[in-house]
């Protein structure tokens, strides 16, 4: 049985190199190459490879985003490839994930291939998800993944002015516009950088870097004015924390 492989890396030389090394492996067939996260996602869904060599750092969606966006039944076996990423390497070790550190030689590649093929397909998605969760919980969220029909894009946490509850969704507001994310406020809040994002109301969180003015209102409440001109109410319960963060 041949192993159908997809190579994902943003550097063409790195892709060619892996391709060349895999040519010598009898049971491996390279079915495609992708140069960024979004095209990798499409390629995985279209080509249904058995195994993906997945570069961790890529423009736009990174390797972990790709796994996060795959449904369990779509998820192939993965060998992570990275130059260096201390969060990722820790997570790989914790969950015994297969990974290759660049540059690697043929012996390492063969070992990783052997381990990846020995793994039963049933337990792959859960293990990969565990890796992603560990990486994510170690560091505050830097980007939000916004899914719209047909495409996914990344919104930098730096650019987000506020997060506001909207039914079952959360609305991310940036200077460029608003995006809906299907997640609860409470779940998002846990993953945000607490030094920058602060809750000001039961249904609103703001990026303190975007706050340009606080206007005292009645009963110890504030009106928070954001860089884009948007005004939000800060209830008394959260006022202390907001002023403390603004002063830091």
């Amino acid at each position: 049985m041949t192993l159908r492989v997809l190579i994902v890396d943003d550097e063409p030389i790195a892709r060619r190199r892996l391709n060349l090394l895999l040519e010598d492996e009898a049971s491996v067939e390279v079915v495609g190459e992708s140069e960024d996260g979004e095209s990798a996602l499409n390629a995985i869904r279209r080509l249904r490879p058995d195994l993906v060599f997945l570069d961790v750092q890529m423009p736009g969606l990174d390797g972990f985003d790709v796994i996060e966006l795959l449904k369990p039944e779509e998820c192939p076996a993965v060998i992570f490839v990275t130059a260096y990423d201390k969060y990722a390497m820790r997570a790989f070790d914790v969950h015994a994930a297969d990974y290759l550190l660049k540059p690697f030689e043929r012996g390492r590649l063969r070992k990783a291939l052997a381990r990846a093929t020995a793994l039963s397909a049933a337990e792959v998605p859960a293990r990969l998800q565990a890796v992603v969760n560990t990486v994510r919980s170690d560091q505050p969220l830097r980007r939000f993944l916004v899914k719209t029909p047909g495409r996914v894009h990344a919104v930098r946490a730096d650019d987000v002015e506020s997060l506001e509850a909207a039914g079952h969704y959360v609305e991310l507001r940036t200077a460029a516009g608003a995006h809906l994310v299907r997640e609860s406020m409470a779940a998002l809040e846990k993953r945000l950088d607490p030094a920058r994002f602060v809750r000001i109301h039961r249904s609103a969180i703001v990026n303190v870097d975007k706050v340009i003015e606080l206007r005292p209102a009645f009963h110890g409440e504030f009106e928070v004015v954001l860089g884009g001109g948007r005004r939000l109410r800060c209830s008394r319960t959260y006022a202390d924390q907001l002023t403390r963060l603004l002063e830091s």
Partner: protein
Amino acid sequence: MRGTHPANLRRRWLVAACCFTAAAVVFTSQVWVDYAYAGHRLSWTRAFLVALVQWQLWTLLAPAVLLLAARVPLSRQRLAIPLAVHVPAAVVVSMFKLALEAAIVQAVVGRGRMPFSLLNLYLSVLTYWAIVAAAHYADQQRLARERELRAARLQTELARAQVEALKMQIHPHFLFNTLNAISGLMREDVESADAMLTDLGELLRGTLQTQDVQEVPLADELRLLGSYLAIQQKRFGDRLTVEIDVAPGCEQSLVPALILQPIVENAIRHGFSVTPGPGAVSIRASAVNGSLRLDVSDEGAGPPQPLREGYGLRNTRSRLHALYDGAAALSVAPREPRGTLARLELPLHRAAGS
């Protein structure tokens, strides 16, 4: 006057007070002898009191003298002005002091004939000049210390820039991906692999060699950047376009060593490499109104607003300040239609003799 700080004046005054008290102790016997010659037999306590009056009056007058010395300092180049001020001032202050002294001393020793000597006047004038000279000496010491401090700071900042540049080269992501690319090229194009190794070598050597030179010609700085950019361009292939445009005549202008490295690295790391699809990084140098303008731009997502400056940019700013005071500027701003524009403006100057 390059500001003598009030705290400095206060400290100098305190030092003067101590000196004058010591002088009073030493001069007690002189006072006793003076009065003995004039026919007064003073007790030693009285003699000490008189000496104390004589000298502590200087403590009272010293702030005025110190202030005047701070306003009109001695300077080797234009000695005429301080002399024209301090020679008459010495005489006036001394006369005033002697008159005051006479009044107070009479109160201490009682009415009667006072010993008088011209020596007292000379001593007063000398004391005045001693204060001015001491202030001058202290100023010189302070200036020398400040010069040393500034040189040390520049040295530290250059060392930091060097460390930053080295960090950029051994930044794990850059270094290991470059090594990976070389090992890939080795199998398909030996010449090209060789060229990449040479570039990596040049880059490391170039940074290590920038030892104690604060400024280098722009051409040298660009050569070092050239190795870095050549590596990046090979790694990313057609996806990365690099444009370098130097207006004629700017090549020999001096720029702080390694000044462009952190800026270009920012453009690649935060501008180009996080944005999918093709992108360009451009470096432009031009002379504008007596300034050398260096623009580094990318086509990424633009700087976060408000800008959060990393260590590299902060060090760049403080180096510019130490080297050119207010004559240099660095700005980082969003660029139309997208991306970031970092602009450096430096005083346009060349190495002497070039």
